[in-house]
């Protein structure tokens, strides 16, 4: 009995020590993980479009968060131009808004600091509102001006750390489209730079379109447009263009929209046989002059016919070889 009790005690002790060691190990691992240097930033809204009378004032609030380690944040406003045709921006960092830049009087930061570029502390997990006042002067030329508000975070490097390698820094932006207009209804002109579909297509494939819209006016617009596909046989199909911003002096490749999803402009149905007439019609922001263009596609069952031909030829070859075989026997 005593031996049994001793054995049971030993077992309990053994399990307890395993539990203790596991607990201590997890505690050490947890602390090691907590020391990882993470960097995380977010900003909302991702875009703000402001139309304003020259001389008037508007304030816009952005919300930023620091989702990583503690750091020092700073805010900048930098002009941008379109780069490529996918809506990407090219920052003009040499003309960042400062006390001496051409746009110095247009923008001021109200909170949490009073000067662009001034650093302020952001703890990990902290959310902060950034309020910017926008005041284009009365003498401002009436047209669009494009800026990106940049939130830059410089993470704290732990004291005593001497690394061999790069230290990464990040900044995240929100785009600001500023339209200066005294009547709020400036003229907008859209141009169909390209509307393309294949001229000949195999049956049972889908029609795919490439659409590029140009804005050579002074104000941004969103194309309000549709592609209408009329076949020789069958019902009409309609695709809606995605209302993406086309800023002035730029061309943008415009996809289609299905619900809230951006998709390639492609017919939902497969083509059969015949002539397909596809018409693109757009108006800038749903008003103004409508631009349209029509392309024609011929659908022909090339693959089906080729397949049938192959089967026929194969059949004839087999028949012939069977005949030759019979004659020789």
């Amino acid at each position, binding site marked *: 009995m005593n031996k049994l009790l001793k054995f049971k005690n030993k077992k309990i*002790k053994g399990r307890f020590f395993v539990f203790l060691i596991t607990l201590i190990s997890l505690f050490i691992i947890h602390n090691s993980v907590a020391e990882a240097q993470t960097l995380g*930033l977010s900003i909302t809204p991702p875009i703000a479009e402001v139309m304003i009378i020259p001389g008037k*004032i508007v304030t816009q609030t952005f919300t930023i968060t620091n989702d990583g380690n503690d750091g020092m944040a700073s805010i900048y406003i930098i002009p941008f131009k379109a780069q490529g045709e996918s809506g990407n921006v090219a920052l003009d960092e040499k003309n960042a808004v400062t006390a001496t830049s051409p746009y110095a009087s247009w923008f001021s930061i109200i909170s949490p600091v009073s000067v662009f570029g001034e650093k302020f502390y952001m703890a990990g997990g902290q959310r902060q509102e950034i309020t910017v006042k926008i005041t284009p002067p009365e003498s401002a030329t009436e047209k669009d001006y494009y800026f990106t508000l940049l939130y830059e975070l410089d993470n704290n490097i732990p004291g005593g750390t001497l690394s061999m390698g*790069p230290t*990464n820094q*990040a900044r995240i932006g929100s785009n600001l489209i500023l339209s200066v207009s005294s009547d709020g209804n400036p003229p907008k002109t859209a141009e169909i730079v390209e509307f393309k579909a294949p001229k000949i297509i195999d049956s049972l494939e889908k029609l795919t379109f490439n659409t590029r819209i140009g804005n050579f006016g002074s104000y941004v617009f969103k194309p309000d447009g549709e592609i209408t596909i009329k076949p020789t046989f069958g019902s009409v199909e309609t695709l809606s263009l995605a209302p*993406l911003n086309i800023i002035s002096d730029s061309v943008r490749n415009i996809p289609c929209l299905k619900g*809230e999803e951006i998709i390639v402009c492609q017919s939902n149905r497969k083509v059969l046989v015949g002539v397909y007439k596809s018409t693109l019609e757009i108006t800038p922001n749903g008003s103004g002059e409508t631009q349209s263009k029509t392309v024609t596609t011929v659908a022909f069952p090339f693959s089906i016919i080729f397949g049938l031909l192959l089967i026929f030829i194969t059949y004839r070859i087999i028949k012939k070889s069977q005949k030759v075989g019979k004659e020789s026997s």
Partner: protein
Amino acid sequence: MASSKILVFLTALLLPFSFYLSPPGIHAQAKITSPNYIIQMPNLNSGAGIPSSAGYKLDTTIGQTAPGLYSSTGYLVRSGFQYIHSIIPFSFSMSNFLINFGTLMPGTPVTRTSTLVVSAGGAGGYRVTAREAGYLQTSTGKTIPDSTCDAGTCSETAAGVWSLATTYGFGYNMSGNDAPSDFIDGTYFRQFANAALSEGDQSVMSSVNVGRDRTATITYKVNVSAVQAAGSYQNRVLFTAIPSF
């Protein structure tokens, strides 16, 4: 019996500490129920009086700017994207911002990785670009040059194969979601665009689609020759994440 009591006592003593092992609280975004596309008028800020219906589209009910209203208030603001009703703040994160290659041995390449994650709820997607402030260098000005890869052809704009232990320098590879197509596989590397040489920022991730948690891996690589001066070489790499307009 005494052992059992000791066991119970010690367990009771240590058990509270086990709560510190549970994962740290995750900072969650507050759920925003207003549409992502709002019209802001004077005395109406972005958080006040906005309908919460997911199907509400302000552009279809307000339509064109009312001229009288615009001239009396002086401005009209639209924030967000009019046809997207779910709100995903634009975000960018990196798993570790401090990259430490440790002690380098000549002819022995060393790699380190970071994970980049982007969430872009806006129309048209996003782009992340990167540039280095200058070469990896010591405080006394000794530098490790950017790699030109095995064939001497890779640059900040075009990746090339870097697999030889006799090719020296510093570079990076991208893989995963939305990585540039010239990174064909893990042996392809580019230099960082060098701001000190006035080289323009280069894209490391980009997409034309709305996306949540788009994840890519950046692999940093360095290799030094036997004649590389000893020292601690450092530089800064700046990542810029901007949504499409």
